[in-house]
């Protein structure tokens, strides 16, 4: 399950990279490429976040927790 989450995160970075190439090229084609890549990255990010919440809720992934509270 962890590998799946990391793979989707890596895919999100691929789309960010594609957006940079669009930014670098510029013009109509570059601008189109950038917009489409950024749109894909936000769609994937929202889906990944929803998946994480669902996986946590159903117990597929046990969250680390982060707040460290003194026990005594």
């Amino acid at each position, binding site marked *: 399950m962890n590998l799946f989450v990391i793979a989707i995160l890596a895919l999100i970075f691929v789309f960010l990279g594609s957006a940079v190439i669009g930014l670098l090229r510029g013009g109509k084609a570059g601008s189109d490429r950038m917009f489409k890549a950024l749109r894909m990255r936000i769609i994937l990010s*929202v889906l990944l976040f929803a998946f994480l919440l669902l996986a946590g809720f159903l117990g597929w992934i046990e969250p680390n*927790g982060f707040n460290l509270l003194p026990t*005594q």
Partner: protein
Amino acid sequence: MSNEKYYVPHGTYWPIIGSIGISTLFIGFANQMHDVSWGWPVMVLGFAIIAFMMFGWLGTVVAESVGGMYNSQVDKSFRWGMSWFIFSEVMFFAAFFGALLYARVLSVPWLGGADNNMFTPELWEGFKATWPLISTPGEAGQNGVAFSTNFKLVDTWGLPALNTGLLLTSGVTLTYAHHALRAGHRDALMGWMLATIALGVVFLGFQITEYGHAYHDGLKLTSGIYGSTFYLLTGFHGFHVTIGVIMLTVILYRIQKGHFNLENHFAFEGVAWYWHFVDVVWLGLFIFVYWI
């Protein structure tokens, strides 16, 4: 200026003002670290000089751009400049995520005797390789404090999840703003930009609240390798969100001034990418620090 091949910048005093600002900042910072009384005000002065330089220099660039002084070659150089800046940002955060990975997966287990490190547990008596490790081994051993056993973990369903939702929503609103810009819908563009900025500001507010909780509960920058990596990662991320909010606000001002059109909006594209990037960095933080 109409020459399409070369653009030679005019003389300017902004670079030397930037140098003076950075020098002042570091002189103040170094002395503040040594508890010198004037260190802190000199540091603030350095920040002020840098802010003045940024405002003046970028203002000059915007005025030149709007004044039609730039040709396609200048556009290309801006795009290359932004791309290298993006590369440096990716490497910057890669180093911090790398530090987190190295500490958590390799060095802490090694100190606990993992792999072929059968003698390392003898370095600090009673050391157990746990994560999060919130005390520095030697220091904790000397003080007789137990290694991260007087703390417990609580779940992630609080501010971190809420903040992730907020930041991802800001990514959605920015994408709608981007679409509105490309479609020529100016009012929608300004509305979505305002929403993006507001979400960023709320995120920062919650992050400050979260720091207050964590600090109050005893998690400090000096709380072992976990405390160091946690505050450096989230702190630098928060700093980047702050910069992003400032840049989005400048872009909103420029939209209001009518600086962009359907074909020419590089500044918007650069800032949009930056915001998407800090959004993804937070998603990475949420996953690696809070979840897996």
